[in-house]
């Protein structure tokens, strides 16, 4: 296993800058996920690492060795493709062992490695079948088997679960985590599914427009998004955003906006402390964007909210019962917010009430730069 290091790596396709100045170190045995919307440069990064594309500039090191000029087959890296890319004319056994055969490994050694991989993926009973005789999940396992038999320096996985149905995807997600913990692999994983990014990774790299937006452990990125994009991309349902205006009055910070009447949200120094914003209090003025996650908003019917000091009047528009929770879509003025509540709270569409924010979990983003004011 090995470390992968990117130094000022960029890739340009004609007029399109697919990747801009990537600087990243994937540690030995680390599971790093590149996440972002399509066209954000994550697959390009993977292809550059594999050697399927050449970087326009910068250097890529695997295990300390500069690999820019090393052909893909010599980089000792395994890749799992979104489409599985199995060889349709070869059996499962031949598919898994093909990379070893190309490397001229002894036949007995190939067979033992294939058996080992097949057993660990529970596909040892399918070894003599052709890919067309397998289900989607089984093909996925064969593709993984092909990667792990080689004992490569690193694994590159390009949206490996996105062709599976929702149920199987969740099951395979857990198995992937177990598998790569067992083989102690350095893994670079690409997905646009933030749930995969959150659950699988040691660190996530959020990308957008060819640029790295934030790198960090999943919960850190989730709880302390560096900018508006990261905040909006991670989390389901999405983080809510409200345009607002900040000003200080009597030592308190007033958050107001078109849809937030005066006094709806007032922050004290203690609140700022909880938000980790006290050191940056001078930034809290002028136009900003308030961000709050659905689980950090509480809805209460009119009668109970009289006493609270910070609250927003709202009306419930849609109730989506998910079983384990309810998702409410509420109207605050002309804005729509999403709230997740407990499944037992009996709320009907059309009901009016009050929203209370968990003030320690508020995020403020700069109105123009969209950077988190805490950053």
């Amino acid at each position, binding site marked *: 296993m090995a470390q992968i290091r990117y130094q000022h790596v960029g890739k340009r396709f004609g007029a399109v800058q697919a990747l801009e100045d990537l600087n990243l170190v994937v540690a030995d045995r680390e599971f790093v996920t590149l996440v972002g919307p399509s066209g954000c440069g994550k697959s390009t990064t993977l292809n550059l690492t*594999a050697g*399927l594309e050449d970087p326009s500039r910068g250097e890529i090191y695997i295990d300390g060795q500069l690999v820019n000029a090393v052909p*893909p*087959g*010599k980089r000792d*890296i*395994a*890749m799992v*493709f*979104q*489409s*599985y*890319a*199995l*060889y*349709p*004319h070869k059996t499962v056994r031949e598919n898994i062992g*093909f*990379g070893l055969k*190309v*490397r001229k490994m002894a036949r007995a050694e190939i067979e033992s490695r294939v058996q080992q991989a097949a057993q660990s993926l529970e596909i040892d009973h399918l070894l003599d079948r*052709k*890919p*067309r*005789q*397998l289900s*989607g999940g089984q*093909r996925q396992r064969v593709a993984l088997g*092909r990667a792990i038999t080689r004992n490569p320096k690193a694994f590159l996985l390009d949206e490996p679960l996105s*062709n599976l149905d929702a149920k199987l995807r969740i099951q395979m997600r857990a198995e992937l985590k177990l598998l790569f913990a067992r083989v102690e692999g350095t893994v670079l994983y690409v997905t646009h599914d933030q749930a995969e990014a959150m659950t699988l990774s040691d660190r996530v790299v959020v990308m957008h427009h060819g640029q790295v937006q934030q790198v960090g452990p999943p919960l850190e990125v989730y709880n302390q998004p560096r900018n508006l994009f990261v905040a909006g991309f991670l989390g389901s349902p999405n983080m809510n955003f409200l345009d607002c205006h900040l000003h200080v009055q009597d030592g308190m910070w007033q958050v107001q906006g078109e849809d937030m009447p005066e006094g709806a949200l007032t922050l004290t120094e203690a609140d700022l402390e909880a938000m980790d914003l006290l050191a940056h209090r001078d930034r809290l003025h002028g136009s900003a964007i308030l961000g709050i996650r659905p689980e950090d908003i509480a809805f209460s019917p009119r009668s109970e909210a009289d006493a609270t000091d910070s609250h927003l009047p709202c009306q419930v528009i849609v109730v989506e019962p998910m079983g384990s929770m309810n998702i409410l879509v509420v109207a605050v003025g002309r804005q729509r917010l999403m709230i997740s509540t407990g499944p037992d709270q009996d709320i009907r569409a059309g009901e009016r009430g009050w929203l209370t924010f968990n003030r320690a979990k508020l995020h403020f983003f700069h109105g123009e730069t969209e950077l988190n004011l805490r950053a």
Partner: protein
Amino acid sequence: MAAARTFVSQQRLGRLLLYLVTAAVLVAVAFPAYWLVTTAFKYEVDTIVSPPIILPLRGTLRNFTDVLRVEHIGQFFLNSALIALVSTGLGVLLGSMAAYSLSKVYMAYRIRQVIMIWILIVRIFPPITTAIPYFVIIRGLNLSDTHVALILTHTAFTLPFVIWLMLGFFQDLPDAIDKAAIMDGCSLWQRFCQITLPLALPGIAVTAIFTFIYSWNEFLYASMLTSRTAKTLPVVIAGYMSDKFLRWGEMSALAAMMVVPVMIFAGLTQRYLVRGLTFGAVKE
């Protein structure tokens, strides 16, 4: 109710028309074959009577025995087979390699287009226009009346066809499979032989059938570049036609016999014509 009945009767009429058209096409396609086979079994006098005998009531094997008694006919048959098989093999191999590189090597769209048209040019002008230069070149190379002369010629003429056809098949193969093979450490040649060619077998089968038929039936260059040693069957057939006689019976008998190897070759390659061979490789 009346409207519904009209609709049904219209449908019936439509179906009837469809059958008629199908029958007409079938007759147009099958009649020449029928005519060829029946003529092969006709007495000489029956082949030239007017009106022609559509349904012969008597037949003979005389034409066949006459044809088989022609001097060196076995050798001419072997010539045809050898030249057709070798030029098919060469054409398909070289053409596939060219098509593969065209499908994999990155080049600007326009450049590829120019190359593709350039390749096609060989087939654009009528073969007769290059006949004299070919004749002179082959004679200059001391290759007149050799198998090599015809093999080279036929391969050259089938290459553009093979390249164009195979390029289509290669471009249809999923790119990810090629990438997977690259990651597995395959060289370009290994990818071509072990991954791409097996997957393109249906395409190769189709291409091979067409090139085989072309070479097997090719007459112009065969008659010009061969005289005795490398003479092929189409040239023999032409020999039954002169200003003094027209031997319909023998011509048809030999032509009917010539169809048989083509049928066998097509039958052998047909099992590769399974569609959807790449099914299961990648999830679309």
